[in-house]
């Protein structure tokens, strides 16, 4: 969406202020459309009443994302790919994190295949109140045998409900896979300059999104996108080639930047499709699995930031999955949403007079980390979140947003009942240890100042050694 003024969207609304969308006015709703926090479908009169048909059509075309959004899969696990409006995340936000599709191959023996599928499907990591997961599975046809591929797809589907990417340049193989999986709306990979006619027919016959693979030739890629769109096939993903090394790696990044720029800054709709990245190609450059996994992470990182909309990956090692997942989470976090918690006293579990009081800052990440470390270990405790303007412990100690007087004021403001505590003691984060002397003075010795671990993950061990205080 290029439009930035709610007024221009307001013109396309019923302007009745009917409140059915939950907003007080149509103008407020229009502002929600601009920020993409509201959807066109939420204006029910516009959808239901025939007299608004033209407005509806106009509105839909105005608010459509600059980069087309493609749906892969069905049901709860369906993924949205693309749908972006900006080049840089702070310009609004990036909306749809690129799904990670980890590969399996049709020449794996069944037990190994099932094991890998299960590992992909169940991998998870908790972070800021959410589970991070893998989203997709890419099934590669190494055998080039339609029957083997179909059997493999069947096994994968029996063991996972993740959306699939069916990967082969052989239309007969793709067709065999589609016969098994079409209802689950997989993405097919890929049409290329040799097979595009057959693959277009498959995409049409089975109503599935299709990848156009034209490595390192954006003219030819655009030509294929135009051709497919001309046939009415617009659920397209572009593969402009991912070179894992050499000068072509630089070209890869330039291509991604140029494609995103063409889509969101120049409104070139005929090339404005989500772009696929193949970090898996790192495995073509080395025999060393650690080196390959590291390089795969590095390739992933580049394109999380610059325009990758969907990725096919290989390494299931935690040491490469974790950083990739966190980087994606960080980059796709909406910068418009505050990441602070309300300052004050929080209860974790059922704290009583014998429970400790842990001190941390109101930076949401810090707070939730401490909370989860206390809660997941079954500890009953109070947490006081000090208002550091949403800055973490280490930085706020250095920057002065966390200070002994601020801590004293915060307890006073929260009217914390020290008298009701059997052990009136606060536990400082290890990184704020240097405040303990000054705090002893400020609290006049009435509250014991204890120094906790530098990382809240060690609170459980700390409790065993130091709580209750002697």
């Amino acid at each position, binding site marked *: 969406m290029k439009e930035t003024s709610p007024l221009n969207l307001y013109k396309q609304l019923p302007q009745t202020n009917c409140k059915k969308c939950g907003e007080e006015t149509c103008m407020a709703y229009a502002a929600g459309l601009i920020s993409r926090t509201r959807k066109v479908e939420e204006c029910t009169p516009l959808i239901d009443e025939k007299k608004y048909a033209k407005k509806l059509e106009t509105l839909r075309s105005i608010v459509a994302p600059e980069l087309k959004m493609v749906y892969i899969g069905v049901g709860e696990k369906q993924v949205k790919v693309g749908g972006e409006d900006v080049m840089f995340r*702070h310009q609004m936000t990036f909306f749809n994190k690129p799904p990670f599709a980890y590969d399996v191959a049709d020449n794996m023996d069944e037990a190994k295949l099932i094991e890998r599928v299960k590992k992909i499907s169940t991998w998870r990591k908790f972070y800021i109140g959410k589970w991070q997961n893998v989203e997709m599975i890419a099934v590669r046809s190494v055998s080039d045998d339609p029957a083997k591929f179909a059997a493999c797809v069947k096994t994968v589907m029996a063991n996972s409900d993740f959306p699939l990417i069916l990967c082969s340049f052989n239309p007969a193989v793709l067709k065999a896979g589609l016969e098994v999986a079409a209802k689950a709306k997989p993405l097919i990979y890929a049409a290329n300059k040799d097979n595009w006619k057959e693959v277009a027919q498959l995409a049409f016959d089975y109503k599935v999104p299709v990848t156009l693979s034209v490595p*390192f030739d954006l003219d030819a890629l655009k030509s294929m996108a*135009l051709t497919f769109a001309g046939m009415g096939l617009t659920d397209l993903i572009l593969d402009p080639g991912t070179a894992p090394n*050499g000068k072509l790696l*630089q070209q890869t990044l330039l291509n991604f930047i140029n494609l995103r720029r063409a889509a969101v800054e120049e409104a*070139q709709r005929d090339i404005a499709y989500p772009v696929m990245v193949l970090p898996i190609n790192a495995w073509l450059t080395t025999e060393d699995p650690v080196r390959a996994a*590291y390089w795969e992470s590095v390739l992933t990182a*580049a394109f999380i930031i610059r325009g990758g909309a969907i990725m096919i990956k290989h390494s299931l090692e935690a040491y490469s999955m974790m950083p990739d997942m966190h980087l994606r989470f960080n980059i796709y976090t909406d910068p418009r949403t505050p990441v602070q918690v309300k300052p004050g006293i929080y209860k974790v579990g059922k704290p009583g007079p014998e429970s400790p009081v842990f001190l941390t800052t109101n930076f949401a*990440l810090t707070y939730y980390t401490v909370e989860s470390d206390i809660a997941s270990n079954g500890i009953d405790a109070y947490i006081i979140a000090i208002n550091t303007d949403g800055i973490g412990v280490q930085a706020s100690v250095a920057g002065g947003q966390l200070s002994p007087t601020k801590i004293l004021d915060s307890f006073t403001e929260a009217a914390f009942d020290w008298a009701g505590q059997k052990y009136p003691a606060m536990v400082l984060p290890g990184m704020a240890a240097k405040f303990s002397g000054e705090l002893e003075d400020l609290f006049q010795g009435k509250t014991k100042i204890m120094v906790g671990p530098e990382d809240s993950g060690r609170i459980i061990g700390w409790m065993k050694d130091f709580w209750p205080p002697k």
Partner: protein
Amino acid sequence: MAEKITLSDLNKTLAEMNVQSLEGLTIEGDVEIEIDAGAGGVGPLFAYYFGQEAAKIAMQLMNFAKAVGYPVENLLQPVAIAQAMSPAPKDLAAAAAAVPAFKVASALASAKFSVGIDKTWRNTIQEVTLGATKADGGSRGHVVKLGGEKAMPFFPDAGMPHAPKITMDVFDMPIGMAKAVKVHYEDVINSPGEWAKKAVKKYGADMVTVHLISTDPLLKDTSAQDAVKTVEEVLQAVDVPICIGGSGNPTKDPIVLSKAAEAAQGERCLIASANLNMDWEKIGKACKDNGHVCLAWTQLEINSQKELNRKLMKVAGVPRESIVMDPTTAALAYGLDFAYSNMERIRLGALKGDEELTFPMSSGTTNAWGVRESWMVRSPNKDDSDWGDRMLRGPIWEILTGYSLAMAGVDIFMMMHPTAVAYLHEITQSLMGRIEAKTPDTTAWLKMGV
């Protein structure tokens, strides 16, 4: 929100009417007529709601059904929305007639891809030289140049004149380190000079940073004179440009850093750092008077960065070519999103014309090791999948922290793990097109056996 009537439903209905066969209609599989009310789309209404193939079949069925007197309108009852939009079957028929059957194109359309450059980027980032050779009154073997960019890093609009640089950390006393890091420095942990040598000779550091943390009153409270000795030791040990870092104590740092700046006069060191919460003027003046570069450190706030840069120039008299910014590195998973966008905004602001921001940027990438995911043996959360080998996990944490900030515009990285240093160097060089390698067939992954 799709409502579906399947062909088998239709067949069942038709069977109840004793219809034996449908002439001229070939159907393979269980074709569905799907109405996706939520999806966007373009084209004739009919195609929009039914899809072309389904439309064709539906039309044939409808015509057939009409011919045998079947109430077509009832048949399409589930299609409430479509009826509301275009209720009369004859309209539907007209729309359907306008939709051509699917036909594979006979040839690819011809097309040229082109895209412009960003014309809103007008400024050049200030070029800053670190280190001075004999010819310039110092004793360094070479200098390091930062800045000079006219575009976002690795963007097509303009090349980067200088590759991102890495300065490796050296501490003046033993400190707590993650195990993955410690194993590389155990033999030099008591000697800043040997430590610096190892960083340069063995790990290929462009520069070293000597952190004078022992001067912190809360640690050893060593004197400025002790600090000067350490700086001299490091200057003797290596001939790369150096960065001199304080302890972070706002009262002590101005004293320690100005003494160190005097002692290293003419070497054009990076002095780390001046901060709004301390006597930045004293540090700025020490840089100006002794020919050093001042690192202007702020905490994730673009306006503070502008304020500090302005004050260093206007009040302390630090020349433009002697300022580097440290807008704070919050590491991967510990607020990287803030650090990333803050730096990206600073760099974009600079390129678009904000003269108070046109300076190279530095990142304390070592902060990655403060993140629990980089060093902990296993997850404190029992429900997490296994965290794997921390000796391998940690270095990637540092690589990705640095690398993502390289994309935001960082020019120089303060780092610790040798593997992380090597990878960051390799990937940034690669993205500048400086590494020759035979690129494999990029579609070979499809059939690779791993």
